[in-house]
């Protein structure tokens, strides 16, 4: 009896969480010209509209480039920071770790305004580079957390063995350390990409005039009208931000199984 209630309650909670998402996905295939029920047929019409909408496509490209660059820079910096924090006995290690993780803890609005004010004070205007820098700052903690955890589990012995066999420290990193932490690096990069790809708060503050990412594009489209195109765009976003990490996790698991530890 008790379990029945708990079960029903669980279903309700999940419904509450995912029903809106399901509705968006469902309506994106609606043939009707209004983005709402009732459905009058199944069509890919709104996806086609999306494809032909220059503004949306431009925003999509911007988001993609921004996400990829964020992932690349964040992952590189995250690996270097993790190596320094885990492998070297640097003074103030704990303080530095806290500082690097802080962007997760600080509300995003505060971070966004702070960075903007700081650059204003320096006399630097808004630019794509600023937007990128902002995204790197708040994706970096995720990369560091994931990569650091993995690096701790890689025994120093293995690297010392490589060194003793004649590999220089840099060669040891590329031949042993990096391959062993690859699953974490891939996970970190995916985190960085997806977080960057669907960020809106920081992006609204930092983006230069005329540049839109997919989330800010949706936001501005919603202000004019509720077009069914938005449903289609939402579906694309869901596929990217949910599908990519799932794919990544599967790849990571495969890599780990091959490598093993």
């Amino acid at each position, binding site marked *: 009896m008790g379990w029945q209630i708990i079960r029903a309650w669980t279903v309700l909670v999940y419904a509450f969480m995912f029903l809106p998402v399901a509705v968006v996905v469902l309506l994106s295939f609606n043939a009707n010209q209004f983005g709402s029920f009732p459905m009058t047929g199944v069509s890919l019409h709104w996806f086609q509209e999306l494809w032909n909408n220059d503004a949306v496509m431009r925003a999509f490209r911007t988001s993609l480039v921004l996400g990829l660059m964020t992932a690349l820079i964040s992952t590189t910096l995250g690996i270097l920071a993790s190596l320094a924090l885990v492998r070297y006995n640097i003074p103030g290690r704990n303080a530095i770790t806290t500082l690097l993780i802080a962007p997760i803890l600080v509300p995003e609005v505060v971070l966004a305004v702070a960075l903007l004010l700081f650059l204003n004070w320096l006399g630097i205007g808004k630019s794509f580079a600023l937007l990128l820098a902002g995204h790197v700052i708040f994706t970096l903690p995720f990369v560091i957390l994931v990569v650091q955890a993995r690096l701790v589990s890689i*025994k120093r*012995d*293995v690297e*010392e*063995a*490589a*060194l*003793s*066999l*004649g*590999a*220089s*420290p840099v*060669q*040891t990193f590329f*031949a*042993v350390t990096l*391959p*062993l932490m690859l699953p974490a690096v891939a996970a970190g990069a995916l985190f960085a990409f997806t977080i960057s790809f669907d960020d809106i708060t920081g992006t609204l503050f930092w983006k230069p005039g005329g540049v839109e990412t997919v989330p800010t594009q949706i936001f501005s489209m919603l202000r004019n009208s509720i077009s069914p195109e938005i449903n289609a765009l939402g579906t694309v976003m869901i596929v990217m931000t949910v599908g990519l990490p799932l794919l990544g996790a599967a790849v990571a698991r495969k890599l780990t199984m*091959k*490598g*093993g*530890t």
Partner: protein
Amino acid sequence: MSAVTLSNIVKRFGTFTAVHRTTLEIPEGAFVTLLGPSGCGKTTNLRMIAGLLDPTEGEILIGGKRVNDVPIHKRNLGLVFQNYALFPHKTVAENVAFGLKYRNVPKSEIAAKVRDALDLVQLPHVGDRYPKALSGGQQQRIALARAIVIEPDVLLLDEPLSALDANLREDMRVELKRIQERIGVTTVFVTHDQSEALAMSDLIVVMSEGRVEQVGKPEEVYNTPATEFVANFLGASNIFDARCVEHGATVVVEDVVFGRVTVPATKAPNLMGTGPAKLVVRAEKLKLARDAAPEGVISVPATVETVDYQGQAVRYFVRAGEAQLQAINMIDDHPFAVGAAVHLHLRPQDCAALPG
């Protein structure tokens, strides 16, 4: 010429001194064991030879050349760790080939050398497998193959047998010694296990608290311990306060348990003259018997207090007057019972004497 020389080496970590001024010569081709309890500085010494730690003071020479400023990857050493440290993402063959790749060995030769190394460790068919598919003993053989395939100037072994099961450990001990003799590489072996040290070494360096206590052949450190620490660490010993009353071709010491004992001078090399001394009686040299001993063997009545039965051997704790002693005897049949009145037999030539 020595293969490795430690000259006035000191290693400090902050205010803690891990290795006190140590000078050590490791002869070419020898199997040298650094033996001691954990924290005695043996691993620190090994890591300094390897180049994984820098000495605070002193010089390290390998093949007569000072290597203090030579980084580990340019020292040409073979290193084997307690936990194997194989590369989990590489196959066994790739693991063994790793060092050859950084030595510009042609591809065709790499394959042949890897095959030879795997043959040497008697695992010729596992090249395509990943390390985790192998047992611990097999993994350690691969680690050994990986270290010797590069033909190192010195092979450094850091407790390589400690992670293995007891049975396997003894097999590997024989195997390791066989391989070392076959290729004749100078080997420095670190262990806390005295039986490993005694069985395998040409030379044992007994260490305690960052200092070298004694350097000698296995039978030297076993039979003629230079210090009380060595006497206690290698095997079980009874050590008594005594007085040296005669010091010449033979040394006569006097103690409360055995009375006057005439020790060969060779077994008291550090005793410089008459005066306070210590008498060392190995537990295996003290025999329990029902009857008094014949002429020439010391005989002391005693009572059995504790019996620790171990199969083919028994460890007794006995009381003789005020003193409690331990004796380890091989037995045919039944051990003496607790409370039995026995005679302790001791041949004077089996005793050693230390300065008091």
